[in-house]
């Protein structure tokens, strides 16, 4: 090699858009892109295109996909019902100890999901804190059921929705809420008819994020709910299972999940872009 050229020759459009990226930032940034994208490139390169049809047409795949979509949808709905009010409390209620509460309820974001699974088992397992009573009084056991999958996914994904909605609530000016209150609307009416419509984009973004996280949930699900086709074996569990039996099938299933996650992400960005441009 004779002389090193700058890694990226700026095209006129980029040049107009802003200052040139200094090399000291460009190199690690390029490395970051490689770290994030090379594994996905490898996944695509190993895709068994010829056999993908047979792999994806297998009944277990449809079963796992359908179960995943149902569970992630249920977890998202549950998160909306519980999470939007929690976000409002964190953003607006001015209660003492809100900071501590926020830290505690968002702990699952940084917690390894498998820890969540163990914790859920200790709470709702057949000998768990609550589970023992559920079993003794009602004959209800939660582990190994689809309900357990939804609970595990909700535990892991709910904080994403709460954080997103709370951020939007904090950013939204309170003027309209206060005006509604001055005009005699009670707090529930104000929340429903004034606050909620104004933060709707944040709620949608939070719900999409929550859905994507629930769709990918593995650790808490396998620990708490177990793995059984049609009942608890969601796509991530099916991928892990396929990896031990037929790595090609695992690659095909992984790509399907990548595609689904991309759809969610594009939906999120479309919404976000619409908000920024609108």
């Amino acid at each position, binding site marked *: *090699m004779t002389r*090193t*050229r700058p*890694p990226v020759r700026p095209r006129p459009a980029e040049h107009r858009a802003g200052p040139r990226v200094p090399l000291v930032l460009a*190199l*690690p940034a*390029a*490395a970051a892109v*490689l*770290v994030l994208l*090379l594994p996905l490139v490898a996944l695509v390169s190993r895709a068994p295109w010829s056999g993908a049809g047979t792999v994806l047409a297998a009944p277990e795949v449809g079963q796992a996909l359908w179960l995943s979509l149902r569970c992630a949808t249920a977890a998202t709905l549950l998160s909306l019902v519980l999470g939007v009010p929690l976000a409002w409390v964190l953003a607006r209620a001015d209660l003492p100890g809100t900071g501590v509460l926020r830290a505690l309820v968002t702990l699952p974001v940084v917690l390894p999901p498998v820890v969540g699974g163990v914790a859920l*088992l200790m709470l709702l*397992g*057949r*000998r768990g804190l609550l589970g023992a009573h559920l079993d003794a009084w009602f004959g209800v*056991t939660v*582990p*190994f059921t689809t309900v357990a999958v939804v609970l595990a996914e909700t535990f892991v994904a709910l904080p994403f929705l709460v954080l997103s909605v709370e951020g939007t609530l904090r950013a939204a000016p309170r003027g309209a809420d206060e005006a509604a209150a001055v005009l005699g609307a009670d707090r529930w009416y104000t929340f429903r008819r004034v606050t909620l419509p104004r933060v709707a984009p944040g709620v949608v973004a939070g719900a999409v994020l929550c859905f994507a996280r629930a769709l990918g949930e593995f650790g808490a699900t*396998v620990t708490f*709910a*177990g*793995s*059984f086709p049609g*009942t*608890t*074996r969601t796509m991530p569990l099916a991928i*892990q*299972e396929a*990896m*031990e*039996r037929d*790595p090609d099938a695992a690659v095909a299933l992984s790509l399907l999940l990548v595609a689904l996650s991309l759809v969610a992400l594009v939906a999120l960005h479309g919404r976000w872009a619409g908000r920024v441009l609108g």
Partner: protein
Amino acid sequence: MLSRLVALPVLVALGVAACGSHAPGADDAEGGPTGALTVLAAASLRDAFERLRGVFEDEHPGVTVTFAFAGSSTLAQQVLAGAPADVLATASTPTMALVGDLADEPVVVARNTLEIVVPVDNPAGITSLADLADPGVTLALCAPEVPCGAAAADAFAAAGITPTPDTYEKDVTAALTRAVLGEVDAALVYRTDVLAAGESVRGIPLPDDVRSSTDYPVAVLTEAPNPDAARAFVALVRSAQGRQVLTEAGFEVP
């Protein structure tokens, strides 16, 4: 340009690799192996191999032993993916065969037998394999890909019973844990697992005509970073002392 873009991640990758790399198996002054030894072993070998660790490290003070216990099919996939391991011990000959030429002449060192395991209070009153066909019984089985799952399938086939499992676990210890925690009424695991779990569970042996067992082959890996230590470890497992430890853990030794 490309080389500069690629250089950094490569350096990072090398750094990461160096963190997990082995010292080469150079011989020390007394002629024994040194360095690190990585053994990938079936989950059911945990107790026996942990006891052999002390013996091995006493005999070869220059060697640091690291065990990774998991389902045999997981381990086989790791070896195929190039995991830097020295010894592979699986819970069945078909899972050992998955790695093909990467295993250097596997030898069977132990045999394990399948048993029903129930929580010590036996909440569902299980007495035989036939009870496991009751959909009201919460049952954990190993996934069919791992040896204990294959052995369970053989036992049910031999008994002409269709089980109604509630979960397929990724390895035998995961299935055992479900019974230890009392989350399931029964699981099918190996005799050695029932012995290792102690007081919290009870084992129910299967009748002779459906008795299902599995062989444990051990092999030095052809791409072992430390083949000297690997051979020494396999020799220990096959020695009189190794056989005794395996027998005490509940294995049959050929």
